[in-house]
């Protein structure tokens, strides 16, 4: 197992590469999804308030 994490002595370069990639991909996904959900909520609220006026 240690051999696996050692990556032939290059673990200090291989693992940070994968961790940074995972973090960036996760962050892009989370921000995009949050944007979509908040806009969906905003539109629903707006439509509700417009319907009430009518």
């Amino acid at each position: 197992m240690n051999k696996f994490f050692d990556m032939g002595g290059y673990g200090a370069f291989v693992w940070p590469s994968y961790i940074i990639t995972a973090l960036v991909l996760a962050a892009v996904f989370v921000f995009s999804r949050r944007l979509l959900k908040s806009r969906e909520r905003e539109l629903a609220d707006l439509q509700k308030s417009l319907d009430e006026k009518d």
Partner: protein
Amino acid sequence: MIEVQGTFNRLANPTRFLALAGAVLPWLTGLTVVLLLVGLYLAFFVAPADYQQGQTVKIMFIHVPSAWIAMMGYSVIAVASVGSLIWRHPMADVAAKAAAPIGACFTLMALVTGSLWGKPMWGTYWVWDARLTSMLVLLFLYLGYMALLEAFDDPARGVKASSILVLAGAINIPIIKFSVDWWNTLHQTASVFKRGGPSIDPAMLWPLFLMALSFTTYYVWVLLMRIRAEIIGRKIRALRMRQTRAGFKGAKAG
């Protein structure tokens, strides 16, 4: 041809697009996860160490797909910008705007993972060689596009200015691709998309291929999500404008 155009027009309608995206998104989620898991398994447990580069070759499986998506993502914006400038198609604006931050992040990933690969293999995190420099220029083009898009009070003017910037910057895409042939770079030359086919062993080519495919489905997945958010954002803006106008009319009548 007419049929193709008909299909394109149907997809280019925001309401139909929203419905289609809603149906496709769950599939893309599953596909991305499966491709990523199989790709990672092959990369870590099947692919051998490189005879020269040892286990640093593991970085290739994320570095190379990131760079591919970074360039593809820019091409997506460039094509959408043509649609926006020539046909003034609103969906083209929406797609270009939604695509930019994702492409910028993939460019950043390619630069960072490349840097972490360069240190043990070249002895330096960064060198001003043609490939690395043109990739950095790509990141700045992405950031410049995103900044310019938001720099005008009138969104239509922002779209026009930023579309022109993107098309002028598109010259950088072939420069990135051929930089390793045109100049004497520290970066190695192409080993997949080149004349005579790939020169990588299948044991490394398969995980690379699957990782690239999973990055592509991830890209499309997040892009569809962002396009949806942008369409809804425009709807909200239009409704608010109508609301304000109705308010003015009401005040005048009163």
